[in-house]
Protein backbone atom coordinates (compact mmCIF):
# COMPACT_ATOMS: atom_id res chain seq x y z
CA UNK A 1 0.00 0.00 0.00
CA UNK A 2 0.99 3.61 -0.39
CA UNK A 3 3.07 5.50 2.11
CA UNK A 4 2.31 8.93 3.41
CA UNK A 5 3.43 11.37 6.06
CA UNK A 6 1.29 12.94 8.74
CA UNK A 7 1.08 16.66 8.11
CA UNK A 8 0.52 19.59 10.44
CA UNK A 9 1.36 19.16 14.10
CA UNK A 10 1.01 15.42 13.84
CA UNK A 11 -1.08 13.40 16.26
CA UNK A 12 -3.06 16.24 17.91
CA UNK A 13 -4.20 17.50 14.52
CA UNK A 14 -5.19 13.97 13.52
CA UNK A 15 -7.28 13.42 16.65
CA UNK A 16 -9.00 16.79 16.42
CA UNK A 17 -9.79 16.24 12.75
CA UNK A 18 -11.34 12.83 13.48
CA UNK A 19 -13.49 14.33 16.23
CA UNK A 20 -14.49 17.18 13.93
CA UNK A 21 -15.67 14.62 11.42
CA UNK A 22 -18.02 13.23 14.06
CA UNK A 23 -16.12 10.09 14.87
CA UNK A 24 -15.81 8.60 18.32
CA UNK A 25 -12.11 8.71 19.09
CA UNK A 26 -10.56 6.39 21.65
CA UNK A 27 -7.01 7.01 22.82
CA UNK A 28 -4.90 6.49 25.92
CA UNK A 29 -6.15 9.07 28.40
CA UNK A 30 -5.62 9.86 32.05
CA UNK A 31 -8.62 8.94 34.19
CA UNK A 32 -8.27 9.48 37.95
CA UNK A 33 -4.57 8.89 37.86
CA UNK A 34 -4.82 5.82 35.67
CA UNK A 35 -3.86 5.70 31.99
CA UNK A 36 -6.51 3.80 30.06
CA UNK A 37 -8.12 3.67 26.63
CA UNK A 38 -11.11 5.97 26.69
CA UNK A 39 -13.11 8.33 24.53
CA UNK A 40 -11.47 11.72 24.18
CA UNK A 41 -13.25 14.93 23.28
CA UNK A 42 -10.10 16.73 22.15
CA UNK A 43 -6.46 15.95 21.42
CA UNK A 44 -5.52 17.60 24.73
CA UNK A 45 -7.02 14.62 26.57
CA UNK A 46 -4.97 12.03 24.69
CA UNK A 47 -1.65 10.81 26.10
CA UNK A 48 0.37 9.41 23.21
CA UNK A 49 3.84 9.70 24.65
CA UNK A 50 3.28 6.55 26.65
CA UNK A 51 4.49 2.99 27.14
CA UNK A 52 1.37 0.84 27.57
CA UNK A 53 -1.99 1.30 29.26
CA UNK A 54 -2.44 -0.97 32.25
CA UNK A 55 -5.58 -2.43 30.69
CA UNK A 56 -5.41 -3.63 27.12
CA UNK A 57 -7.38 -2.34 24.14
CA UNK A 58 -9.57 -5.45 23.98
CA UNK A 59 -12.36 -3.82 25.94
CA UNK A 60 -13.03 -1.50 23.04
CA UNK A 61 -14.53 -4.49 21.19
CA UNK A 62 -15.08 -6.82 24.13
CA UNK A 63 -16.34 -4.71 27.04
CA UNK A 64 -15.87 -5.81 30.63
CA UNK A 65 -19.63 -6.23 30.89
CA UNK A 66 -22.41 -5.88 28.35
CA UNK A 67 -26.07 -6.81 28.10
CA UNK A 68 -26.86 -9.43 25.48
CA UNK A 69 -30.57 -8.95 26.12
CA UNK A 70 -32.93 -7.17 28.46
CA UNK A 71 -36.00 -8.71 30.10
CA UNK A 72 -38.97 -7.36 31.97
CA UNK A 73 -41.83 -9.30 33.52
CA UNK A 74 -43.39 -6.48 35.47
CA UNK A 75 -46.45 -6.58 33.20
CA UNK A 76 -47.07 -10.28 33.81
CA UNK A 77 -45.68 -11.55 30.52
CA UNK A 78 -41.96 -11.72 29.96
CA UNK A 79 -40.82 -9.10 27.51
CA UNK A 80 -37.44 -9.66 25.94
CA UNK A 81 -35.48 -6.85 24.38
CA UNK A 82 -32.54 -7.54 22.08
CA UNK A 83 -29.44 -5.41 22.57
CA UNK A 84 -28.75 -2.46 20.32
CA UNK A 85 -26.46 -3.40 17.46
CA UNK A 86 -25.81 0.20 16.49
CA UNK A 87 -22.22 1.01 17.23
CA UNK A 88 -20.79 4.43 16.47
CA UNK A 89 -17.97 4.71 14.00
CA UNK A 90 -14.89 4.55 16.21
CA UNK A 91 -11.23 5.26 15.61
CA UNK A 92 -8.64 4.03 18.09
CA UNK A 93 -5.62 6.29 17.97
CA UNK A 94 -2.25 5.25 19.32
CA UNK A 95 -2.70 1.55 20.03
CA UNK A 96 0.67 -0.12 20.43
CA UNK A 97 1.29 -2.99 17.99
CA UNK A 98 0.80 -5.58 20.78
CA UNK A 99 -2.65 -4.14 21.47
CA UNK A 100 -3.62 -3.79 17.81
CA UNK A 101 -2.46 -7.33 17.03
CA UNK A 102 -4.82 -8.80 19.61
CA UNK A 103 -7.87 -7.91 17.52
CA UNK A 104 -7.30 -10.23 14.54
CA UNK A 105 -6.29 -12.94 17.03
CA UNK A 106 -9.62 -12.51 18.82
CA UNK A 107 -11.51 -12.58 15.49
CA UNK A 108 -10.84 -16.34 15.30
CA UNK A 109 -12.68 -17.22 18.46
CA UNK A 110 -15.51 -14.72 18.14
CA UNK A 111 -16.33 -15.87 14.60
CA UNK A 112 -15.48 -19.54 15.03
CA UNK A 113 -18.70 -21.56 14.85
CA UNK A 114 -21.02 -18.56 14.96
CA UNK A 115 -20.60 -14.82 14.87
CA UNK A 116 -20.63 -13.13 18.24
CA UNK A 117 -22.35 -10.14 16.74
CA UNK A 118 -21.71 -7.81 19.64
CA UNK A 119 -18.02 -8.38 18.98
CA UNK A 120 -18.04 -8.43 15.19
CA UNK A 121 -20.27 -5.36 14.78
CA UNK A 122 -18.10 -3.36 17.15
CA UNK A 123 -15.06 -4.63 15.33
CA UNK A 124 -16.51 -3.57 11.97
CA UNK A 125 -17.21 -0.09 13.34
CA UNK A 126 -13.67 0.27 14.67
CA UNK A 127 -10.64 1.51 12.76
CA UNK A 128 -7.27 1.15 14.45
CA UNK A 129 -4.42 3.61 14.05
CA UNK A 130 -1.41 1.90 15.57
CA UNK A 131 1.69 3.60 16.88
CA UNK A 132 5.19 2.11 16.74
CA UNK A 133 6.79 1.69 20.17
CA UNK A 134 9.50 3.95 21.53
CA UNK A 135 10.05 2.11 24.82
CA UNK A 136 10.04 -1.47 26.08
CA UNK A 137 10.94 -3.31 29.26
CA UNK A 138 12.18 -6.75 30.29
CA UNK A 139 8.70 -8.24 30.21
CA UNK A 140 8.09 -7.33 26.55
CA UNK A 141 8.57 -10.32 24.25
CA UNK A 142 6.47 -9.52 21.17
CA UNK A 143 9.31 -10.49 18.83
CA UNK A 144 9.06 -14.06 20.15
CA UNK A 145 5.44 -14.46 19.07
CA UNK A 146 5.91 -13.31 15.50
CA UNK A 147 5.20 -9.65 16.16
CA UNK A 148 7.38 -6.61 16.71
CA UNK A 149 7.21 -3.06 18.09
CA UNK A 150 6.60 -1.77 14.57
CA UNK A 151 4.37 -4.59 13.33
CA UNK A 152 1.28 -3.68 11.32
CA UNK A 153 -0.90 -6.65 12.39
CA UNK A 154 -4.28 -5.43 13.55
CA UNK A 155 -3.59 -1.82 12.63
CA UNK A 156 -5.55 -0.35 9.74
CA UNK A 157 -3.00 2.42 9.66
CA UNK A 158 0.36 2.34 11.42
CA UNK A 159 2.18 5.50 12.42
CA UNK A 160 5.89 5.50 13.10
CA UNK A 161 7.65 8.54 14.44
CA UNK A 162 10.84 9.21 12.52
CA UNK A 163 14.03 10.72 13.85
CA UNK A 164 13.01 14.18 12.64
CA UNK A 165 9.75 13.98 14.62
CA UNK A 166 7.51 13.44 11.59
CA UNK A 167 5.09 10.52 11.51
CA UNK A 168 5.43 8.00 8.70
CA UNK A 169 2.02 6.63 7.69
CA UNK A 170 1.50 3.05 6.50
CA UNK A 171 -1.98 2.36 5.26
CA UNK A 172 -2.43 -1.35 5.92
CA UNK A 173 -6.03 -2.30 5.14
CA UNK A 174 -8.96 -1.18 3.00
CA UNK A 175 -10.54 0.25 6.12
CA UNK A 176 -7.38 2.25 6.66
CA UNK A 177 -7.48 3.37 3.05
CA UNK A 178 -11.04 4.58 3.48
CA UNK A 179 -10.12 6.59 6.56
CA UNK A 180 -7.01 7.97 4.87
CA UNK A 181 -9.16 9.13 1.97
CA UNK A 182 -11.51 10.92 4.36
CA UNK A 183 -8.62 12.63 6.09
CA UNK A 184 -7.35 13.91 2.79
CA UNK A 185 -4.71 16.54 3.27
CA UNK A 186 -3.71 15.43 6.75
CA UNK A 187 -1.92 12.54 5.11
CA UNK A 188 0.65 14.03 2.78
CA UNK A 189 1.72 11.85 -0.14
CA UNK A 190 5.13 10.22 0.10
CA UNK A 191 7.33 9.27 3.00
CA UNK A 192 10.96 8.71 3.87
CA UNK A 193 11.14 4.92 3.67
CA UNK A 194 14.73 4.61 4.78
CA UNK A 195 14.00 6.71 7.88
CA UNK A 196 11.04 4.40 8.54
CA UNK A 197 13.30 1.37 8.28
CA UNK A 198 15.72 2.96 10.70
CA UNK A 199 12.97 3.77 13.21
CA UNK A 200 11.71 0.19 12.90
CA UNK A 201 15.13 -1.26 13.58
CA UNK A 202 15.52 1.00 16.58
CA UNK A 203 12.12 -0.10 17.91
CA UNK A 204 12.86 -3.78 17.39
CA UNK A 205 16.16 -3.44 19.22
CA UNK A 206 14.22 -2.32 22.30
CA UNK A 207 12.88 -5.82 22.80
CA UNK A 208 15.78 -7.80 24.21
CA UNK A 209 13.83 -10.75 25.57
CA UNK A 210 13.76 -13.70 23.26
CA UNK A 211 11.93 -16.98 23.85
CA UNK A 212 11.74 -19.94 21.49
CA UNK A 213 7.96 -20.21 21.54
CA UNK A 214 7.73 -23.00 18.96
CA UNK A 215 10.17 -25.10 20.96
CA UNK A 216 8.14 -24.35 24.09
CA UNK A 217 5.01 -25.49 22.25
CA UNK A 218 6.70 -28.76 21.33
CA UNK A 219 7.23 -29.38 25.02
CA UNK A 220 3.76 -28.22 26.02
CA UNK A 221 2.24 -30.61 23.48
CA UNK A 222 3.19 -33.65 25.53
CA UNK A 223 3.71 -32.35 29.07
CA UNK A 224 0.23 -31.82 30.40
CA UNK A 225 1.44 -33.61 33.52
CA UNK A 226 4.83 -32.38 34.62
CA UNK A 227 6.29 -31.17 37.89
CA UNK A 228 7.14 -27.87 36.20
CA UNK A 229 3.51 -26.86 36.64
CA UNK A 230 3.61 -27.47 40.35
CA UNK A 231 6.43 -24.99 40.72
CA UNK A 232 3.85 -22.28 39.97
CA UNK A 233 1.57 -23.17 42.84
CA UNK A 234 2.42 -19.73 44.23
CA UNK A 235 -0.23 -18.44 41.79
CA UNK A 236 -2.80 -16.75 44.01
CA UNK A 237 -5.77 -17.48 41.78
CA UNK A 238 -6.75 -13.92 40.97
CA UNK A 239 -7.69 -12.85 37.46
CA UNK A 240 -5.28 -9.95 37.10
CA UNK A 241 -3.27 -11.63 34.32
CA UNK A 242 -6.29 -12.56 32.26
CA UNK A 243 -8.10 -9.27 32.71
CA UNK A 244 -5.15 -7.07 31.70
CA UNK A 245 -4.36 -9.48 28.84
CA UNK A 246 -5.21 -8.26 25.32
CA UNK A 247 -6.13 -11.77 24.15
CA UNK A 248 -7.77 -13.57 27.09
CA UNK A 249 -11.43 -13.62 26.13
CA UNK A 250 -13.37 -15.89 28.48
CA UNK A 251 -16.72 -14.64 29.63
CA UNK A 252 -19.65 -15.82 31.69
CA UNK A 253 -23.33 -15.33 30.89
CA UNK A 254 -25.28 -14.22 33.94
CA UNK A 255 -28.65 -12.65 34.66
CA UNK A 256 -28.46 -9.41 36.58
CA UNK A 257 -31.92 -8.79 37.96
CA UNK A 258 -33.40 -5.85 39.80
CA UNK A 259 -36.93 -6.55 40.90
CA UNK A 260 -38.86 -7.90 37.92
CA UNK A 261 -36.56 -6.73 35.18
CA UNK A 262 -32.93 -7.01 34.33
CA UNK A 263 -30.30 -7.92 31.82
CA UNK A 264 -28.62 -11.05 30.66
CA UNK A 265 -24.96 -10.03 30.71
CA UNK A 266 -21.76 -11.17 29.16
CA UNK A 267 -19.17 -10.59 31.90
CA UNK A 268 -15.45 -11.22 31.77
CA UNK A 269 -14.37 -14.46 33.43
CA UNK A 270 -10.98 -16.05 34.09
CA UNK A 271 -9.63 -19.59 33.95
CA UNK A 272 -7.43 -18.74 36.93
CA UNK A 273 -10.51 -18.41 39.18
CA UNK A 274 -11.12 -21.53 41.29
CA UNK A 275 -14.80 -21.73 40.33
CA UNK A 276 -14.20 -21.51 36.57
CA UNK A 277 -14.55 -25.26 36.07
CA UNK A 278 -16.61 -26.29 39.08
CA UNK A 279 -19.29 -28.73 37.98
CA UNK A 280 -22.84 -28.68 39.33
CA UNK A 281 -21.95 -31.82 41.28
CA UNK A 282 -19.26 -29.89 43.13
CA UNK A 283 -16.47 -31.76 41.35
CA UNK A 284 -13.68 -29.55 40.02
CA UNK A 285 -11.38 -31.10 37.40
CA UNK A 286 -8.90 -28.28 38.05
CA UNK A 287 -8.85 -28.85 41.76
CA UNK A 288 -5.69 -26.96 42.65
CA UNK A 289 -4.30 -23.64 41.52
CA UNK A 290 -1.37 -24.76 39.40
CA UNK A 291 -3.78 -26.68 37.15
CA UNK A 292 -5.71 -23.46 36.55
CA UNK A 293 -2.53 -21.59 35.75
CA UNK A 294 -1.48 -24.44 33.44
CA UNK A 295 -4.74 -23.99 31.55
CA UNK A 296 -3.90 -20.35 30.89
CA UNK A 297 -0.54 -21.28 29.40
CA UNK A 298 -1.81 -24.26 27.41
CA UNK A 299 -4.74 -22.34 25.99
CA UNK A 300 -2.46 -19.57 24.79
CA UNK A 301 0.45 -21.53 23.41
CA UNK A 302 -0.99 -24.93 22.53
CA UNK A 303 -4.76 -25.23 22.11
CA UNK A 304 -5.38 -21.93 20.33
CA UNK A 305 -2.40 -22.48 18.06
CA UNK A 306 -3.62 -26.00 17.22
CA UNK A 307 -7.15 -24.83 16.49
CA UNK A 308 -6.58 -21.54 14.72
CA UNK A 309 -2.91 -21.53 13.74
CA UNK A 310 -2.09 -18.48 15.84
CA UNK A 311 -0.72 -18.04 19.33
CA UNK A 312 -3.07 -16.44 21.82
CA UNK A 313 -0.47 -13.96 23.02
CA UNK A 314 1.01 -10.75 21.67
CA UNK A 315 3.98 -10.66 24.04
CA UNK A 316 2.87 -7.41 25.68
CA UNK A 317 4.08 -8.65 29.07
CA UNK A 318 1.16 -7.18 31.02
CA UNK A 319 0.44 -10.44 32.86
CA UNK A 320 4.02 -10.61 34.10
CA UNK A 321 4.12 -6.95 35.04
CA UNK A 322 0.88 -7.12 37.02
CA UNK A 323 1.16 -10.54 38.59
CA UNK A 324 0.96 -10.01 42.38
CA UNK A 325 3.44 -12.85 42.87
CA UNK A 326 5.80 -12.06 40.00
CA UNK A 327 5.04 -15.01 37.73
CA UNK A 328 6.66 -14.13 34.42
CA UNK A 329 5.00 -15.76 31.43
CA UNK A 330 8.15 -15.52 29.29
CA UNK A 331 10.06 -17.34 32.01
CA UNK A 332 7.45 -20.10 32.07
CA UNK A 333 7.94 -20.46 28.30
CA UNK A 334 11.72 -20.33 28.67
CA UNK A 335 11.49 -23.15 31.19
CA UNK A 336 9.32 -25.17 28.81
CA UNK A 337 11.65 -24.51 25.86
CA UNK A 338 14.67 -25.33 28.02
CA UNK A 339 13.12 -28.61 29.09
CA UNK A 340 12.47 -29.44 25.44
CA UNK A 341 16.18 -29.03 24.72
CA UNK A 342 17.34 -31.34 27.47
Amino acid sequence: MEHRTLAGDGLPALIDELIKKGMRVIAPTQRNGDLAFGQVSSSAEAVLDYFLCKRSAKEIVFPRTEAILGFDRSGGEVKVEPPSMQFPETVVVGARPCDAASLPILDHIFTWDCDDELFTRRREATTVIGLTCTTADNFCFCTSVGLSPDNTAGSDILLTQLEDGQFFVEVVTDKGEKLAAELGELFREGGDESARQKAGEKARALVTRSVDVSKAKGWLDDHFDDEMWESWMTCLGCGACTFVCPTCHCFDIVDEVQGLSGHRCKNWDACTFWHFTVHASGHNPRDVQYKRYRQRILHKFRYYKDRFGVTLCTGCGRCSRHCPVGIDIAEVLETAAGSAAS
Partner: protein
Amino acid sequence: MSKGLQDIARELLEKGEVQVVVGWGAVKADPDRTRPILVTDPDEVGELVWNPRCVNNLAVYLTKAKSDVQALGKAAIVAKGCDVKAITGLIQEMQFSRDDLVIIGVACKGVVSDGSLWQGELTEENRDLKCRFCDVRTPRTYDHLVGEEVPPVDAEDDWKDVRELEEKTPRERWDYWQEQFERCIRCYACRQACPFCYCTRCIADKTLPRWIESGQHPRANLAWNIIRAMHLAGRCVECGECERVCPVGIPLNLLNRELAKEVAVEYGYRAGYDSEAPPPFATYREEDDQSFIR
Protein backbone atom coordinates in the same frame (compact mmCIF):
# COMPACT_ATOMS: atom_id res chain seq x y z
CA MET B 1 21.50 -10.54 54.96
CA SER B 2 20.19 -13.16 52.55
CA LYS B 3 23.05 -15.48 53.62
CA GLY B 4 21.88 -15.59 57.24
CA LEU B 5 18.39 -16.37 56.05
CA GLN B 6 19.65 -19.13 53.77
CA ASP B 7 21.62 -20.76 56.60
CA ILE B 8 18.57 -20.84 58.85
CA ALA B 9 16.40 -22.24 56.06
CA ARG B 10 18.94 -24.93 55.21
CA GLU B 11 19.17 -26.09 58.79
CA LEU B 12 15.40 -26.23 59.22
CA LEU B 13 15.00 -28.29 56.05
CA GLU B 14 17.97 -30.55 56.70
CA LYS B 15 16.88 -31.34 60.25
CA GLY B 16 13.40 -32.02 59.00
CA GLU B 17 11.87 -29.41 61.31
CA VAL B 18 9.93 -28.11 58.35
CA GLN B 19 9.19 -29.47 54.88
CA VAL B 20 8.87 -26.14 53.11
CA VAL B 21 10.24 -22.63 53.53
CA VAL B 22 7.96 -19.91 52.21
CA GLY B 23 10.21 -17.00 51.31
CA TRP B 24 11.10 -14.48 48.65
CA GLY B 25 13.27 -15.06 45.58
CA ALA B 26 14.37 -12.78 42.75
CA VAL B 27 12.36 -12.42 39.55
CA LYS B 28 14.79 -13.49 36.83
CA ALA B 29 13.74 -10.90 34.25
CA ASP B 30 13.87 -8.10 36.80
CA PRO B 31 16.27 -8.84 39.67
CA ASP B 32 15.06 -5.66 41.40
CA ARG B 33 11.76 -7.43 41.94
CA THR B 34 11.10 -10.39 44.18
CA ARG B 35 8.32 -12.92 44.39
CA PRO B 36 7.15 -15.68 46.71
CA ILE B 37 9.01 -18.97 46.37
CA LEU B 38 8.50 -22.32 48.05
CA VAL B 39 11.75 -24.05 48.95
CA THR B 40 11.54 -27.75 49.82
CA ASP B 41 15.10 -28.82 48.96
CA PRO B 42 17.98 -27.70 51.24
CA ASP B 43 20.16 -27.38 48.15
CA GLU B 44 17.88 -24.65 46.81
CA VAL B 45 18.00 -22.28 49.78
CA GLY B 46 20.39 -20.12 47.73
CA GLU B 47 17.35 -18.78 45.93
CA LEU B 48 16.06 -17.11 49.08
CA VAL B 49 16.64 -13.37 49.33
CA TRP B 50 15.83 -10.66 51.81
CA ASN B 51 15.97 -6.99 50.75
CA PRO B 52 13.70 -3.90 50.75
CA ARG B 53 11.97 -5.17 47.60
CA CYS B 54 10.56 -8.18 49.47
CA VAL B 55 7.10 -6.71 49.55
CA ASN B 56 4.77 -9.72 49.39
CA ASN B 57 3.02 -10.64 52.61
CA LEU B 58 3.65 -14.39 52.54
CA ALA B 59 1.17 -15.08 55.34
CA VAL B 60 -1.40 -15.56 52.60
CA TYR B 61 0.13 -19.01 51.91
CA LEU B 62 -0.65 -20.14 55.46
CA THR B 63 -4.41 -19.91 55.04
CA LYS B 64 -6.84 -22.64 54.07
CA ALA B 65 -7.40 -20.76 50.82
CA LYS B 66 -3.96 -22.07 49.78
CA SER B 67 -4.38 -25.66 50.87
CA ASP B 68 -2.09 -27.02 48.16
CA VAL B 69 0.83 -25.19 49.81
CA GLN B 70 -0.07 -26.66 53.19
CA ALA B 71 -0.10 -30.11 51.61
CA LEU B 72 3.68 -29.75 51.24
CA GLY B 73 4.03 -30.18 55.02
CA LYS B 74 5.01 -28.04 57.97
CA ALA B 75 6.14 -24.59 56.89
CA ALA B 76 8.70 -22.05 57.93
CA ILE B 77 7.74 -18.59 56.80
CA VAL B 78 10.01 -15.64 56.23
CA ALA B 79 8.20 -12.65 57.66
CA LYS B 80 8.65 -8.94 58.23
CA GLY B 81 7.13 -7.40 61.34
CA CYS B 82 4.05 -6.34 59.40
CA ASP B 83 3.65 -9.84 57.96
CA VAL B 84 3.88 -11.22 61.50
CA LYS B 85 0.93 -8.97 62.38
CA ALA B 86 -1.09 -10.92 59.79
CA ILE B 87 0.14 -14.23 61.24
CA THR B 88 -0.88 -13.01 64.70
CA GLY B 89 -4.34 -12.16 63.40
CA LEU B 90 -4.69 -15.56 61.77
CA ILE B 91 -3.73 -17.30 65.03
CA GLN B 92 -6.24 -15.07 66.84
CA GLU B 93 -8.88 -16.22 64.34
CA MET B 94 -7.88 -19.81 65.04
CA GLN B 95 -6.74 -20.59 61.51
CA PHE B 96 -3.71 -22.42 62.91
CA SER B 97 -1.73 -22.39 66.10
CA ARG B 98 1.64 -20.82 66.74
CA ASP B 99 3.23 -24.30 67.03
CA ASP B 100 2.13 -25.17 63.50
CA LEU B 101 4.78 -23.01 61.93
CA VAL B 102 8.30 -21.70 62.27
CA ILE B 103 8.68 -17.96 61.86
CA ILE B 104 11.93 -16.69 60.39
CA GLY B 105 11.56 -13.03 61.28
CA VAL B 106 13.48 -10.39 59.38
CA ALA B 107 14.54 -7.12 60.97
CA CYS B 108 13.26 -4.52 58.54
CA LYS B 109 13.81 -0.82 57.98
CA GLY B 110 11.14 -0.55 55.34
CA VAL B 111 10.13 -1.85 51.93
CA VAL B 112 9.56 -0.27 48.53
CA SER B 113 6.47 -1.46 46.68
CA ASP B 114 6.64 1.05 43.88
CA GLY B 115 9.35 -0.24 41.55
CA SER B 116 9.52 3.10 39.75
CA LEU B 117 10.84 4.70 42.97
CA TRP B 118 13.50 2.04 43.52
CA GLN B 119 17.01 3.28 42.78
CA GLY B 120 18.89 0.42 44.41
CA GLU B 121 18.37 1.48 48.03
CA LEU B 122 15.76 2.24 50.62
CA THR B 123 15.29 5.95 51.33
CA GLU B 124 12.99 8.11 53.43
CA GLU B 125 11.19 9.04 50.23
CA ASN B 126 10.67 5.71 48.52
CA ARG B 127 9.58 3.52 51.43
CA ASP B 128 5.94 2.48 51.73
CA LEU B 129 3.45 4.50 53.74
CA LYS B 130 3.12 1.76 56.35
CA CYS B 131 6.87 1.88 56.97
CA ARG B 132 6.82 5.56 57.93
CA PHE B 133 5.36 4.88 61.37
CA CYS B 134 6.27 1.24 61.75
CA ASP B 135 6.35 -0.05 65.33
CA VAL B 136 7.22 -3.63 64.37
CA ARG B 137 10.53 -3.25 62.54
CA THR B 138 11.64 -6.14 64.71
CA PRO B 139 8.80 -8.68 64.50
CA ARG B 140 6.89 -9.10 67.77
CA THR B 141 7.27 -12.86 67.63
CA TYR B 142 9.70 -15.12 65.78
CA ASP B 143 11.67 -18.34 66.15
CA HIS B 144 14.73 -17.10 64.28
CA LEU B 145 15.69 -13.54 63.51
CA VAL B 146 17.63 -12.44 60.43
CA GLY B 147 19.63 -9.26 61.06
CA GLU B 148 20.05 -7.12 64.17
CA GLU B 149 17.00 -5.87 66.04
CA VAL B 150 15.75 -2.54 64.72
CA PRO B 151 13.99 -0.08 67.06
CA PRO B 152 10.52 1.15 66.06
CA VAL B 153 10.21 4.33 64.01
CA ASP B 154 10.03 7.33 66.31
CA ALA B 155 6.70 8.50 64.88
CA GLU B 156 3.13 7.47 65.52
CA ASP B 157 0.55 6.81 62.84
CA ASP B 158 -0.84 10.28 62.14
CA TRP B 159 -3.70 8.98 59.94
CA LYS B 160 -2.89 11.87 57.59
CA ASP B 161 -4.19 10.01 54.54
CA VAL B 162 -7.43 9.14 56.30
CA ARG B 163 -7.95 12.63 57.73
CA GLU B 164 -7.58 14.12 54.27
CA LEU B 165 -10.34 11.84 53.09
CA GLU B 166 -12.53 12.70 56.07
CA GLU B 167 -12.20 16.40 55.34
CA LYS B 168 -14.16 15.92 52.13
CA THR B 169 -17.93 16.28 52.22
CA PRO B 170 -19.96 13.05 52.04
CA ARG B 171 -20.83 13.94 48.44
CA GLU B 172 -17.15 14.44 47.54
CA ARG B 173 -16.21 11.17 49.21
CA TRP B 174 -18.96 9.38 47.35
CA ASP B 175 -17.78 10.82 44.02
CA TYR B 176 -14.18 10.00 44.86
CA TRP B 177 -14.88 6.34 45.55
CA GLN B 178 -17.24 6.02 42.61
CA GLU B 179 -14.46 7.27 40.35
CA GLN B 180 -11.98 4.88 41.89
CA PHE B 181 -14.25 1.84 41.77
CA GLU B 182 -15.38 2.58 38.22
CA ARG B 183 -12.19 1.10 36.87
CA CYS B 184 -12.25 -2.02 39.08
CA ILE B 185 -11.93 -5.01 36.76
CA ARG B 186 -13.08 -7.48 39.41
CA CYS B 187 -9.95 -9.57 39.09
CA TYR B 188 -10.03 -10.14 42.84
CA ALA B 189 -6.26 -9.69 43.14
CA CYS B 190 -7.03 -7.71 46.32
CA ARG B 191 -8.88 -10.66 47.80
CA GLN B 192 -6.42 -13.32 46.68
CA ALA B 193 -3.40 -11.44 48.05
CA CYS B 194 -5.09 -10.78 51.39
CA PRO B 195 -4.20 -13.09 54.30
CA PHE B 196 -7.60 -12.38 55.84
CA CYS B 197 -9.64 -13.22 52.74
CA TYR B 198 -9.44 -16.94 53.43
CA CYS B 199 -13.09 -17.90 53.05
CA THR B 200 -13.32 -21.10 51.06
CA ARG B 201 -16.25 -19.59 49.22
CA CYS B 202 -16.27 -15.82 49.07
CA ILE B 203 -19.63 -14.08 49.00
CA ALA B 204 -18.60 -12.66 45.61
CA ASP B 205 -18.40 -16.20 44.21
CA LYS B 206 -21.79 -17.34 45.46
CA THR B 207 -24.40 -17.69 42.78
CA LEU B 208 -27.50 -19.10 44.54
CA PRO B 209 -28.40 -16.42 45.27
CA ARG B 210 -25.88 -14.12 43.67
CA TRP B 211 -25.23 -11.51 46.33
CA ILE B 212 -22.83 -9.43 44.29
CA GLU B 213 -23.18 -9.07 40.54
CA SER B 214 -20.11 -10.13 38.58
CA GLY B 215 -20.53 -7.36 36.01
CA GLN B 216 -17.92 -4.64 36.07
CA HIS B 217 -20.30 -1.73 36.40
CA PRO B 218 -20.49 0.93 39.12
CA ARG B 219 -23.28 -0.74 41.09
CA ALA B 220 -21.54 -4.09 41.31
CA ASN B 221 -18.06 -2.65 41.77
CA LEU B 222 -19.27 -0.53 44.67
CA ALA B 223 -20.98 -3.52 46.27
CA TRP B 224 -17.85 -5.67 45.99
CA ASN B 225 -15.38 -3.14 47.30
CA ILE B 226 -17.55 -1.95 50.20
CA ILE B 227 -18.40 -5.48 51.28
CA ARG B 228 -14.74 -6.49 51.25
CA ALA B 229 -13.77 -3.43 53.28
CA MET B 230 -16.48 -4.11 55.86
CA HIS B 231 -15.42 -7.74 56.20
CA LEU B 232 -11.93 -6.56 57.05
CA ALA B 233 -12.87 -3.95 59.65
CA GLY B 234 -11.10 -4.76 62.90
CA ARG B 235 -9.13 -7.55 61.19
CA CYS B 236 -7.04 -5.84 58.52
CA VAL B 237 -3.44 -5.27 59.64
CA GLU B 238 -2.91 -2.64 56.92
CA CYS B 239 -0.14 -4.55 55.16
CA GLY B 240 -1.24 -2.81 51.96
CA GLU B 241 -1.05 -5.88 49.74
CA CYS B 242 -4.52 -5.26 48.27
CA GLU B 243 -3.49 -1.83 47.10
CA ARG B 244 -0.10 -2.98 45.87
CA VAL B 245 -1.50 -5.76 43.71
CA CYS B 246 -4.46 -3.85 42.27
CA PRO B 247 -3.69 -3.75 38.54
CA VAL B 248 -5.68 -0.54 38.11
CA GLY B 249 -4.32 1.30 41.13
CA ILE B 250 -7.37 1.69 43.39
CA PRO B 251 -6.24 3.05 46.81
CA LEU B 252 -7.76 0.14 48.70
CA ASN B 253 -5.59 0.51 51.77
CA LEU B 254 -7.01 3.97 52.28
CA LEU B 255 -10.44 2.42 52.59
CA ASN B 256 -9.15 -0.21 54.99
CA ARG B 257 -7.36 2.41 57.04
CA GLU B 258 -10.51 4.51 57.28
CA LEU B 259 -12.17 1.53 58.96
CA ALA B 260 -9.07 0.73 61.04
CA LYS B 261 -9.19 4.28 62.37
CA GLU B 262 -12.87 3.91 63.29
CA VAL B 263 -12.03 0.72 65.17
CA ALA B 264 -9.04 2.37 66.85
CA VAL B 265 -11.14 5.33 67.97
CA GLU B 266 -14.28 3.44 68.98
CA TYR B 267 -12.73 0.30 70.43
CA GLY B 268 -9.16 1.33 71.24
CA TYR B 269 -8.06 -1.66 69.17
CA ARG B 270 -5.49 -2.18 66.43
CA ALA B 271 -5.40 -5.57 64.74
CA GLY B 272 -2.35 -7.80 64.60
CA TYR B 273 -0.65 -7.12 67.92
CA ASP B 274 -2.07 -9.72 70.29
CA SER B 275 -3.26 -13.18 69.32
CA GLU B 276 -5.06 -13.50 72.66
CA ALA B 277 -7.05 -10.25 72.35
CA PRO B 278 -10.81 -10.58 71.86
CA PRO B 279 -11.55 -9.53 68.27
CA PRO B 280 -13.90 -6.53 68.45
CA PHE B 281 -16.46 -7.78 65.95
CA ALA B 282 -16.44 -11.42 67.00
CA THR B 283 -16.92 -10.98 70.72
CA TYR B 284 -20.23 -10.78 72.57
CA ARG B 285 -20.59 -9.21 75.98
CA GLU B 286 -23.87 -8.70 77.77
CA GLU B 287 -22.90 -5.21 78.82
CA ASP B 288 -22.25 -4.12 75.20
CA ASP B 289 -24.10 -0.97 74.20
CA GLN B 290 -27.34 -2.00 72.54
CA SER B 291 -29.05 1.37 72.49
CA PHE B 292 -28.58 1.66 68.74
CA ILE B 293 -30.77 -1.41 68.13
CA ARG B 294 -34.35 -0.23 67.73
